[in-house]
């Protein structure tokens, strides 16, 4: 017991000496930085910018998401992935997203803000660019573009659904959901094309056994559920890997870590 106490006292003394030596070295450090981490050298902490979620933030984020969709449809058209009726449908959806982006930008300015004119940078880097890279290597790029479009349109509808109750100006709600419901119709139209055999999913609904579907749910339905979803939207894309699987990307609505805050304009 005595030995243990002694040892501990010596350890504390040695530790104190180490701390003192460190402080001395730090004091002698001067103003030059070698870039190598060492005691006493720490970067100045930077304050996180104040980022309230205002109506303007929500509208700017909606515009940024519209620009993500525009980017995808333009990329698909540029690569020539789609043809025939699928290309015509995509061209209509592209035109709608351009209208939606103009509308949300106009609402942003009417609310006293500055419109966001770029794709959402975070969604672009974590969803859009990886998805397009997978499609470029896919065995059937046209099918993958339609799958991505279905997921993106579902996500867009879900985003307006999520943002509408957050808007403090009641007059903006109808405008927001007027766009959101059209995004939902885009997804439903694609769902009816991709899965014409079953337009309305019975999965998750309370229906008699005779009306239920057998097996796993399809990834595509015109009407997948009784309510709009707030869950991540999965989409499977790209080539088959060595293990026989394909990559699934889970799209999530832009929230606090991916909104188009006004301070982004200053960066």
């Amino acid at each position, binding site marked *: 017991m005595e030995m243990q106490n002694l040892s501990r006292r010596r350890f504390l003394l040695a530790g104190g000496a180490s701390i003192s030596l460190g402080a001395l070295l730090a004091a002698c450090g001067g103003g030059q930085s070698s870039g190598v981490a060492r005691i006493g050298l720490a970067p100045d902490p930077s304050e996180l910018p104040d980022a309230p979620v205002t109506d303007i933030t929500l509208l700017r984020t909606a515009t940024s998401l519209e620009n993500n969709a525009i980017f995808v449809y333009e990329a698909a058209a540029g690569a020539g992935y789609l043809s025939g009726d699928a290309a015509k449908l995509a061209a209509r959806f592209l035109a*709608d997203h351009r209208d939606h982006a103009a509308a949300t930008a106009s609402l942003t300015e009417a609310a006293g803000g500055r419109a966001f004119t770029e794709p959402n940078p975070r969604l672009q880097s974590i969803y859009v660019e990886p998805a397009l890279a997978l499609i470029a290597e896919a065995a059937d790029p046209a099918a993958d573009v339609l799958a991505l479009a279905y997921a993106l349109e579902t996500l867009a509808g879900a985003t307006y659904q999520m943002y509408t109750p957050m808007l*403090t100006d009641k007059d903006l709600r109808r405008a927001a959901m007027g766009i959101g419901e059209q995004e939902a119709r885009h*997804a439903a139209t694609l769902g009816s094309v991709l899965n014409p055999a079953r337009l309305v999913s019975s999965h998750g609904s309370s229906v008699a056994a005779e009306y239920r579907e057998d097996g796993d749910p399809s990834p595509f339905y015109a009407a997948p559920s009784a309510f709009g979803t707030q869950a991540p939207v999965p989409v499977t894309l790209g080539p088959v890997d060595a293990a026989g699987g394909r990559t699934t990307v889970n799209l999530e609505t832009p929230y606090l870590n991916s909104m188009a805050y006004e301070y982004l304009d200053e960066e």
Partner: protein
Amino acid sequence: MTSTPPRRPTAADSTLLGFAQQAEIAARDLYRVAAAAGTGGEQNSSVATLAAHHDAASQAISALIGRDAPQTRLDSIFDAYEDRFTASTDDLALAAHELENTMVATHLSLLEALEGTDGVALVSSVVIAEARHVSAMAALAGLSPVADIEAYLDIPSSITALSPEN
């Protein structure tokens, strides 16, 4: 300066949401009679599931406003559509297409009037689902998603939102 809206429905909200519930029950009953009559052809199960969707919306409104929920259907809507919902698959699809557009327009108009954000969140969620119903019914009617794309995507100008006053 904009004040923070309440979460829970106000008394006026409950009246509006109660009206929406009556419209949902009417839609549910219409799809139920259509499913029972076998209309919808190969999509008869989809028709039955649409009844479940509207039932779910009705129950969600009931959960939100409690005893203020009327739990009765809007007979004027049911009576206006019943014959078309049971006549043939084409008649059903076109009638349901019109009804779902009307439901969407009705719920969009509610969003401007509601005060409580819980009600706004619920109605927004229902709008998304019922907008998708419209496109599903356009497909069931055999309309082309290219040549007839407006039937899938747009609310026709002839559609009028339901309201407790009319």
